């Protein structure tokens, strides 16, 4: 079973629907035991980093998710959930993340040409990095996924498995061993996104 962590950040309807549609055994939960019992974890999230990390800490799930991932359980962070995997975020201050992926979350502003709009919103294509990750087993390089974000993963070269071009090579997905993250929304990326979720669920025996 796969646990979608419900810690009061964002709407999990589409994510749970998309997982159900590919036949994954899914539960939306903030129950520690259920997360411990599940074979894989998805950490979603929209909104501001500071608010999200605070909610995750207050729910008591911060340490649990970190230790489960460190023990080898498959973990997928989506959008802000991916950003939470990093060491630090510099969104409206300086905040500590889970520290599972080496790197920092930085603003796109100032890094991309000024004529490009922020947030980076819409469909962009994936360029695979550091070989082809097993997360992309069922998709091809150049496939399109849906992004909505104003901050991005930086200083994380060794973990980057895909980038998208938006003035610069923006980190689109990361992986370190059993820990995965997508800046884009697979649950909003049509068949390509469903195929990414499918490969994650298979790896997590869900």
């Amino acid at each position, binding site marked *: 079973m796969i646990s979608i962590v419900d810690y009061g950040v964002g*709407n999990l*309807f589409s994510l749970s629907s998309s997982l159900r549609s590919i036949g994954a055994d899914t539960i939306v939960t903030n129950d520690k035991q259920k997360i411990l019992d599940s074979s894989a974890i998805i950490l979603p999230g929209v*909104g501001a980093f500071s608010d999200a990390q605070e909610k995750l800490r207050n729910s008591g799930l911060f340490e649990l998710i970190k230790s489960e991932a460190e023990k080898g359980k498959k973990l997928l962070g989506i959008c802000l959930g991916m950003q939470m995997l990093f060491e630090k975020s510099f969104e409206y201050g300086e905040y500590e993340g889970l520290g599972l992926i080496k790197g920092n979350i930085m603003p796109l502003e100032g890094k991309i040409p000024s004529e490009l709009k922020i947030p980076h919103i819409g469909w962009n294509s994936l360029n695979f990095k550091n070989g082809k990750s097993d997360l992309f087993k069922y998709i091809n390089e150049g496939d399109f996924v849906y992004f909505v974000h104003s901050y991005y993963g930086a200083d994380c070269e060794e973990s980057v498995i895909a980038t998208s071009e938006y003035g610069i090579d923006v980190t689109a997905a990361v992986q370190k061993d059993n820990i995965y993250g997508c800046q884009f929304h697979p649950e909003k990326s049509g068949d390509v996104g469903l195929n990414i979720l499918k490969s994650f669920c298979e790896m997590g025996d869900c």
Partner: protein
Amino acid sequence: MITKRIIPCLDVKNGRVVKGVNFSGLSDVSSPVELAEYYSKAGADELVFYDITASFEGRELFTDILTEVASKIFIPLTVGGGINSLDDFDRVLKCGADKVSVNSGAIKNPGLIREASLKYGDQCVVLSCDVKRVDGGFRLFAKGGREDTGINAIEWIKQGVSNGAGEIVVNSIDTDGVKNGFDIEMLQAVCEVVNVPVIASGGAGCSEDFIKLFNSIPTIDAGLAASIFHFGEVEINDLKKLLKDNNINVRL
């Protein structure tokens, strides 16, 4: 590279799509769920559902349908129509909408955009405007384009963005329904003053109108249309292939 988006808009009244006709292979052309699936398969980059129901019962039907669509279709969904309060935002977001479009609701309550963007994030709040030329300027209209508000549309849009609107839909009353192309002049004027995505609406009559739109205004992000897609005059996949042949970057 980021792509230009093509967005069909579905008007829903009492749970049924209005004007949804002329599709072979669809058993029920006025079913929002069937049409949404059809458009998703045809390559739509996003869907807009516009609730034109007036009654409370109709609103309930709409949210039921939205829930069904959102559980089957995994591309971004925007919902508009009758959004006047944070409760309205909440109601449609819980059913799986990703973005909420406000129009008259923001005119009645100018604080709504700020409140909603603080609560749900800028990316969630779409400001939709009906704009018409009056006395040589661009004027904001309310109530589906029936009422002149006297407000300068360009100023209104600038203010909306600074209050937290994450996207702007500009519907030109002057070109809407005429099918003679998008209102390039008006859209250009909007694109010059904002740095959030701008979606063009009103006037698309054929595929060439989209080519002209994206070539004339490189900073425009998306083209929205209803009847040319509903009536099968333009197939979304054919349109996107044509755009690509014209060096306009699209998702195929």
